[in-house]
């Protein structure tokens, strides 16, 4: 079944910065409609791995198969055109613009060269509703007036608006309180329910166990474990991350 085929498959990906080898032949699969968590200690190479997918920092070697085709991700625009969206930790929103303006930044709806604000407003509303966002009161609020969770929501909704096939989230809950973390995790689930493949980086294993379907563990630039969340435990994952446990690939 197509459902079982990964949307994204990395094989033997390598990346070095001069003498420092950061990725030493990494394998990773991400499935449509599923949340895959990418975990690993500081400096394990998580950010380097996703920068390659975003096209901002190409890999040295290895193959990337996206949607059944081998692709060479060398620039961000190419990645975006394939349907890969990265929601960075700094979110990259313009505080001085409102939600609608941020959602449509760079892809505004115009008619006759002038903005069609009504259409943009409606689409924004629809996308937020499709993600069951209830906390935003007005789509014309300035982003500067939003809470951290709401800002994260806007950033994720923007990926949905772009009809991304793969959404990569870099520590989306790192700066959030309990309630807002809950909201964002719900949003991540909602995203997967819409058929989007989600790759989420997190240091918070509690979050990982709440939303993820699969967990992939990077240890010093190598993928040491790659398990369905149902078949592993909190302690095991901690073990893989710290290198005190080894994962038996044969079991998978």
């Amino acid at each position, binding site marked *: 079944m197509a459902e079982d085929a990964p949307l994204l498959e990395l094989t033997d990906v390598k990346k070095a910065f001069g003498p420092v080898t950061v990725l030493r032949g990494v394998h990773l699969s991400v499935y449509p409609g599923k949340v895959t968590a990418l975990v690993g200690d500081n400096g394990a190479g998580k950010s380097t791995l996703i920068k390659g997918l975003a096209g901002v920092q190409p890999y040295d070697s290895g193959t990337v198969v996206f949607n059944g085709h081998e692709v060479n991700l060398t620039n961000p625009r190419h990645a975006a055109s394939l349907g890969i969206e990265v929601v960075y930790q700094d979110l990259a929103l*313009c*505080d*001085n613009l409102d939600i609608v303006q941020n959602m449509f*930044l760079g892809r505004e709806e115009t008619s006759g060269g002038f903005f069609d604000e009504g259409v943009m407003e409606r689409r924004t509303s629809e996308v937020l509703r499709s993600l069951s966002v209830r906390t935003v*009161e*007005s789509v014309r*609020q*300035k982003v500067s007036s939003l809470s951290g969770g709401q800002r994260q929501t806007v950033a994720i909704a923007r990926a949905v608006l772009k009809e991304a096939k793969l959404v990569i989230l870099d520590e989306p809950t790192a700066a959030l309180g309990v309630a807002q973390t809950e909201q964002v995790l719900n949003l991540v689930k909602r995203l997967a329910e819409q058929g989007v493949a989600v790759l989420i980086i997190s240091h918070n294993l509690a979050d990982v166990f709440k939303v993820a379907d699969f967990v992939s563990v990077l240890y010093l630039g190598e993928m040491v474990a790659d398990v369905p969340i149902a078949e592993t435990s909190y302690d095991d994952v901690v073990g893989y991350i710290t290198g005190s446990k080894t994962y038996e690939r044969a079991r998978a």
Partner: protein
Amino acid sequence: MSTKSVQISDAAPDPIADDLIGAGQEGTLLDQVRGYFSRVRQGEMGVLPAVGGMVVLAILFTILNPLFITERNFANLMTQSATLVMLAMALVFVILLGEIDLSAGTTYGVAMCAFVVLVSVVHVNWILALLAAFAIGLAVGAFIGFFVARVGIPSFVVTLGLFLGFQGLELIIIGNGGSYAVQVPQILAIMNSNLPIWGGWVLLAVMVAITIGTGFWDRARRKRAGVPNRAQALLWAKVGVIVVLGGLAVFFLSQNRGAVSDIRGVPIVVPIVLFILWIGTFVLDRTKFGRYMYAVGGNAEAARRAGVKVIAIRWIAFIICSTLAVVSGIFSIGQVGSVDATSGRDIVLSGVAAAVVGGVSLFGGRGRLIHAAIGAVVISMITNGLGLLNLPAGANYLVTGGVLILAASVDAISRLRSGGSLFSRS
């Protein structure tokens, strides 16, 4: 927005369709007014402090010297402020990006020196000379844009260099101590002649028609998209304000204000400024270029990641600023009637001050052309009003400086109260 303002009342023009999230457009006139004040309380004061300052100054100066409110002084104020209004609007284009153009004044100085020398010495047709002046503005903007946007030198440094260099260039073009009379009646007419009486009323009618036209155009498009419109009464209130204030101004200017001969009518410079203000605002509010100006000014990295060509936007902004500065220069020489080597030397900081007083943020990303225009009128009122009081020239600078700091403080404190930090960039 308070929850109240998104409740639908019977008088709401279009109920919220389906299950849309509010946009602050819903509700009655009263809801809208309430929404506006809640935004003001949150620190989005917009043009309010500058307009308030304008009213206070007008009352103050009228009490101190009733000559302030005469027809003649009213018309004087318009022509006296036109140069600064134009320069402040030019500067908005770079200030919105968080940049600065310290050479905007001397840029027009160089362009005007070249213009007057071309006309008076080389005897070039004045229209060609004018085109040459605009070409100089354009070239200077492109030059600044290159060094700021491509090479990456801070605009403060590049334009400070040009500010100093252009003073020398003016001296070289004009000659030390030299001064040329402007011998082009069309240029002098901009500042010294008036529209016929009916012209003033036509101008007002056009403004009203444009307001109603764009108002209904927006409403029609929102309706087509299926999102609610503001109460129509709001549009009529806006039209009412324009009709009353504009009508008073035109009426006032239609009275004879000459001492010996009969002088009446709206100064020709007024429709020119209004036209540039309208076009500029339209572009900033309704086109991709305008939106990207705000985006780059707010968060250049976010804009870049969203696919905005940040370098091009910066570059174009400097070109627009320098080119509009030339318009300001034309107003200036039309008013003074001559050009010397100091043309445009002292005005640029007043232009920056005008923008800030009006509510444009030097951090970038926040402000509109109308803000700069009103700020410039406030500063011109100070000069004009204190002049009528025969105070020493020093008072003018002191008061202007005080108003600038006051305006910046009002803005910063309103933001602080609304929860932002004193140094917040938004």
